[in-house]
Structures are given as structure tokens and as C-alpha cells.
């Protein structure tokens, strides 16, 4: 169990680092990257939850949740980047 715990704690640390940077940075790109670090942390926690010891197969539910979460995260990132690009174009005009 300790190995899974190390992964889960790493995930928690990543999450907190991401939150900190999302709130403190000003420019959009670093904030967006920080959000993705946040997401990676959350997903790492989910994946480490799936481990149930060497004798049992891994729990599929957290894996399914992570897949859904990834799709949401990537669409949201794409939307934010598109909005940012539109803003840049407006600034250039």
C-alpha cells in the first residue's frame, strides 16, 4: 500500500502547486499550465486509488473516471487557448 500512498501524496502536492500558481500568476498561459498540473495531480490520485494489492486486479472505476476527466480537461484547455487567441487578435487589430 505504501507505493500507492506515495503516488497519492505526489498527486496531492501537484494539486496544491497547481492551485497556488493558478491563483497567483497573471498571464493566461502559466495559469492554464498550472491548471493542467492541478489536473495531473487529481488524476494521479485517482490512478493510485485503483491499486488494490498485487493479488487483486486493479479497480477499473477510477480508470474510467480519469479517462472522462482527461477529455473534459483537454476540451477546456483548448477552449481557453482559443479564447486567448481571439483576444490577441483583437489586441493586434
Amino acid at each position, binding site marked *: 500500500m505504501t507505493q500507492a500512498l506515495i503516488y497519492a501524496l505526489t498527486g496531492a502536492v501537484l494539486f496544491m502547486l497547481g492551485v497556488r500558481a493558478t491563483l497567483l500568476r497573471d498571464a493566461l498561459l502559466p495559469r*492554464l499550465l498550472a491548471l493542467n498540473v492541478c489536473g495531473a495531480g*487529481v488524476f494521479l490520485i485517482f490512478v493510485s486509488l485503483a491499486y488494490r494489492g498485487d493479488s487483486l486486479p486493479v479497480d477499473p472505476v477510477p480508470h474510467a473516471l480519469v479517462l472522462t476527466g482527461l477529455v473534459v480537461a483537454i476540451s477546456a484547455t483548448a477552449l*481557453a487557448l482559443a479564447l486567448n487567441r*481571439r483576444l490577441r487578435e483583437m489586441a493586434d487589430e
Partner: protein
Amino acid sequence: MNNLLIWPVAVPLLSALLALLWPRRSTWIGVLGTALSLLAVVLVSRQVIESGAIELALGGWSPGLGIALRADGLSVLMLLMSTLVSMAVAVYASVYFSRSERRSEFWVLWLLLITALHALFLSGDLFNLYVTLELLGLSAVVLACLGGSRESLQAALNYLVLGLLGSMAFLIGVALIYAGYGTLDMAALAVAIESGPTAWLALSLMTGGLLIKSALFPLHFWLPPAHSNAPAPVSAVLSALVVKAALYLILRLWLALFDEVVTQTAALILGLLGGIAVLWGSWAALQAERLKLMAAYSTVAQVGYLFLFLPLLAALPEGTTRDVALGALVLLALTHGFAKSAFFLAAGVIMQRAGHDRIAELGGTARALPVTAFTLALAGVALIGLPPSGSFLAKWQLLSSVFITGQWIWLPVIAIGTLLAGAYTFRLLGYAFAPGEGVGPSLSVGREEIPAVLLALVATLVLGFWASAVWELVPISAYAGGEG
């Protein structure tokens, strides 16, 4: 018969796909899809009123493995509000966007927003709630920047980033719950969750994430720019419905799932933040120079009132007294939903006619747009909480809960907040009913003025005279751990 439960989600989703495939007919599809969703919600509500809470296991997979949709009193009330408001706003939007080139985009996103809202109110599974929250957030962000101005894009981008952060916090709470209890089904969790570090941490993270989305002070700063720069129909649903969705989730979590974890101190902290929101939001609304900004700050204040109920609910023993207070909270949320959407639609009518929404230059509104000026006054009655509006009854119950629990600290907050709401409403009406040429010459009543006045009438008359229905519906719960 239980299969009815899929329709409030399926109808708007299918209409959204149709609108995407057939952009030239998108207005018709949008209005018709909204009307059919309204019908589906009415049918579901009738069934809940007649035979109690209903459940649907999607695809025949039992909850635990599959995911469940559930409808009970609270979700039916929220559904009815959201579908009635969206029907009125859809009629208004069919005029507002009739000549816009963004028409087809608007209707697709509009129907997706309704889908996400309905799925959220019906969801019986924590992870599904996360997905619907994200769908709601994403469609709301794109709708908010449809105006295309620099300010609206900037505000929408900020809204998106903060909303994502909120969802991440919610998701990590979901992970903790799964780690602790091995299920995400809310009915099973309502029984299983016990007080302990896991439950406590999960509740804090999920509540924290939802507080960003419900814009409770001091996490409200994204709301005024996002809501005031969006197109009028979008502002109306953002303020009336989208903010309420996060609040609905907080209620579900606090009262049904985590009822054994919630402490008086935690509830008191949220109550205090709510109190500051009431005072600060009302003060900022009084200072606002633009009509839509005033409405947005007033939303910050009204959300604050709803959080004042939490410490009272936590202090009251389970039973009739608590159900009465909970009913008052829901009634206040519903009244605000109808009143604020009416307010934003009226502001939209004025903006289209006058080309601006500067409050100090609104002289002549009452002569040029009598119906719209009347709408502003009616919505103002509901925002202040004067009789016979629903919020009058709700605030009356709020005060009696204060007396029962002896939490006197809320008394001055409610009094000052109500006075400030009166001040900002009458300041606006003073300008709107003054003579002047700010809005242009008098014309006949337009089709776009009717939906707003109907919404305002629901807030001030219907919810006031038929409020007992709210109190009858609220105790019907699908989650045994909550009210029983």
C-alpha cells in the same frame, strides 16, 4: 413510467444536435426544444408530486455499477424554475438574436446549457455531477462571450479558469470519497458517510470548489464582469440559473450526504461570508453606474442571503422546523431566479432601445417603455422582499429561524441588506420614471417586453400566493440520510 426521467435531459440534447445540423432553422428548433423540455419537466414533476421521489437506473445497470438519475422535491423545484425561466428567455432570445449572425451558435449552446442544468438537478451520482458541472461551465463560458467584445472575452476567460479550478477541487473531493467509501452513488453515500478526517477533507474541498462557482464573497470577483458583459438573455440565465446550480449542490452535500460531518463552526463561517456578501454586494449595487452591473452585484448579495440559512439549518433539530427553514431557502432561491432573469431581460430591452444602460441617463424609460419600467419595479419588489413576493415570505421565515435559534447576529445583516436593496431599487426607479429623452420616443409594446414582465409576475405574485407548494415539495427526499 420511470423512463420519464430521461426526457428532461434527452429532449434538449437531441434538439441541440438538430440545431447543429440544421443551422438555418436553429431559432425554431431552439424555442421548440425548450418548450418540449418544459413539457418533460412538468410530466416528471407531476409524477413526483403524485407518487414521491423517482429513480431511473440508466441502461438498466443498478446504481453502484451504473449511474442513477433521481428526482425528488428539491430537484423538481429547481427543474421547474430553470425550465420556466429558460422558456421565457428563449422567447426573448428569439427576438434578440433574430438578426445576429451568431444565431445558430447561440441556440446550440443554449440547448446544451439546458441539458447540463437538467442533468445536474437529476443526477444521483457524484462523478456525474462533476461532468454536468463542467458541461454547464463550458457552455456558460462560450455563451458569455457571444457578445464578442474585448471585455466580455476577458471576463469569460477569467470565469473559465476559475470555474475549472473549482471543478478540480470538487473532483479531488470525489476521489477522496471513492477512496473512503468505495462508491459514488449518492443514496448509498447518504447512509455510509460518517464523521472523520476523509469525509471532512472531502466536504471542505468540494464545498470550496462550489463556492467559487456560486460566487460567495470573497470568491465573487469573477461574477460582475462576466454577467454584466454577456448578451442580455445569457446574463439572465447565468445569474438566475447557473449560480443556483452550484448552490443546489452545496445544499445536497450539506443536508443529505454530509449531514453528520457538518459542524456548527463550518456553517457559521459560510453564514458570515454570506452576511458580508449581502452587505458588500448591496453596497456595490448602490454604487454601480450601469444597470447590468447593478443587477450582477445584486446577485452577489442575493447569493449571500441563501448562505445565511446554513448556520440556521445546522442549529435547528431535524424535523418540521428545519423543513420550514429549508423551504424558505428554496423559495428565496426560486424568487431570485425569476426576479433576476426578469431584471436582466428588461435591462436588455432598454439597452437595445437606448444603446446604453447608464442608470443616470435612463430618464423617460417609463414613458417610452412602460411595460419594461413596470417589470423593473416588480422585479425590484421581489429583490427587496416586499409583500406579496415569494422573497417576503422567505425572509419572514428566515427571521423566525433567527428567533428560534437565537443567532441574533444575522438580524442587523438582514435589516441593513433589505434597506440597501430598497435604496438601489428606488434609485433606479427614480431615474427610470423621471422625465427625459434618454431612451427615445414612445412606441407600442414589443414582443420582447412580454417574457420579462411574466417572469417578474411569477416572482412577485405566483410564488407569493402559492408558496405553500414549495413547502409541501421540499420534504419529499430521495436521500434517506437527509431529512429522515
